[in-house]
């Protein structure tokens, strides 16, 4: 893997007129909720225009899920991702399906717990042990989506830690704020350790 500085990655997302994010995986991994939280963080607390859409199957768990967050300084006409700046994949299937929509300079984040890529589609590909961290460090596997959001915030700067935490507090189901914030924190830590 090429050596990237955290600052260089974050600079990619600075002053961009349109940023397209796709969160993908399976039903039940909480990716749609994660996308809604991301939309709130960016739209309410970073003051940008945002459109959030989703595509999922009829199953409550399983089935391919993707959620797109489009962030723009101007008006957003097409609300879905066309060429993705940031792709999160939480299953092998999602990686196979969506690696082609990544921009060459785009960033891929994959969950090492589920995804073991033989080849990396872009040079800025980063594996993190997302689900394992949620299960073993945070203590609840279902918080993997929040760990992922923490990683996205720290790695890309699309939303500040502060904005993300405010959005999590607003959107997390009552009584689960604390554990979800802890999960975000652990995600941030993963990035800090990687780039220290």
């Amino acid at each position, binding site marked *: 893997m090429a050596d990237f500085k955290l600052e260089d990655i974050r600079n990619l997302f600075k002053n961009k007129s349109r940023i397209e994010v796709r969160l993908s995986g399976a039903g039940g991994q909480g990716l749609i909720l994660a996308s809604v939280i991301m939309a709130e963080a960016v*739209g*309410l607390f970073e003051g940008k225009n945002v459109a959030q*859409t989703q595509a999922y199957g009829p199953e409550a768990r399983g089935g391919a899920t993707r959620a797109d967050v489009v962030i723009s300084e101007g008006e*957003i006409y097409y*609300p*879905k991702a066309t060429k993705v700046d940031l792709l999160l994949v939480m299953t092998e299937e999602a990686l196979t399906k969506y690696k082609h929509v990544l921009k060459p300079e785009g960033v891929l984040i994959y969950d090492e717990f589920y995804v073991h890529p033989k080849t990396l589609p872009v040079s800025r590909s980063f594996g993190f042990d997302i689900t394992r961290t949620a299960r073993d460090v945070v203590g609840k596997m279902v918080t993997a989506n929040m760990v992922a959001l923490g990683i996205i915030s720290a790695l890309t700067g699309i939303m500040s830690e502060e904005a993300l935490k405010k959005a999590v507090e607003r959107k997390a189901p009552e009584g689960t704020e604390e554990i979800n914030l802890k999960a975000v924190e652990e995600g941030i830590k993963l990035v800090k350790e990687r780039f220290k």
Partner: protein
Amino acid sequence: MSEFKRVGIIQGNEACAVAAIDAGVRFFAGYPITPSTEIAEMLAAELPKVGGRFIQMEDELGSMAALVGASFAGLKPMTATSGPGFSLMQENLGFAAMVEAPCVVVNVQRGGPSTGLPTKASQGDVMQAKWGSHGNYPIIALAPHTVREVYDATVMAVNFAEEYRTPVVLLLDEVIGHMRERVVLPMPEEIKVVNRKKPSEPPEFYKPYKHTEDYIPPMAIFGEGYRFLTTGLFHDEMGFPTSDDNEITKLVKRLHKKIYAHEEKIWRYEEFMTEDAEYLLIAYGSAARAAKEAVLLTRKEGKKVGLLRILTVWPFPAKIVRELANGKKAVLVCELNYGELVGEVERATKGLNVPVFFKGRWDGELLHPFEIRDFIKGV
């Protein structure tokens, strides 16, 4: 009064529910179905707070029947459904048209036929909205394209239903219904709310289906002392069943004129970069968002393309389409179906010598701007 979130990241279905309450809807009968469920969910929580009623019915046949009843009881009624439920509502939707009961049916379209694609987008019910029930009747149908416009179109739908004493169909689709955008919704006092025309004559002179000058009969409320007969059979001005050919002719004509004599007030559309356009795209609902992006992409490559975005799909704004299509090199219609409104465009442009092309998608995915761009290139 309910306190709604009006500023922030708001979903299309949420905006619909807020607008319904703002526009005066006080009755909802429905049967939850993806991708419309959030509307029922929210109104179930909010309607009782404003003195309204929410009923989860046994099915969509009953839902539509309950709407007609609530309408005659003087309330502004609404239901929300998707394709399979919309099919089941057709019989009583025709009844609502025949007895002229103001009501709003929201159809958040998903892939079909049958149970089809519960969680994916479609615009496959545009023709069903117009021709879904049997017999001769017109309809008003609106297809908004942003969360903010869902609010406006919902208010408009309720107002049109009241003003023209007719059922109105609000055609959302999965993308528009489920999409969240950063929006600012108006406060209730900022919007115009229309209430149905009430009779001015004393009860003994009241005719519930009177052939008035504007074709819209004033509507009394059941139980207010007016004689009010209701039947799905052809009826005279008093509401008595009739098979008199003159009466039947008059009623069918009036039902149509009620909408078509006022169509220019009902038409809503947007011209997007059409001033210098040589090619005209036509789209509505979520597909229009892809079309707008495609206009920008194509213009960057030097081809002058504009978009006519239609909000009022029924009554179809044929005159506007013809005026804008005139002199263009080609007209391109983009829809999430196998070809529905394109037929109306062809009719509207007949004899203009402007070719009409169609780009559709029916796999549950939203048309991609690149697809439309490449399609324009090929014309």
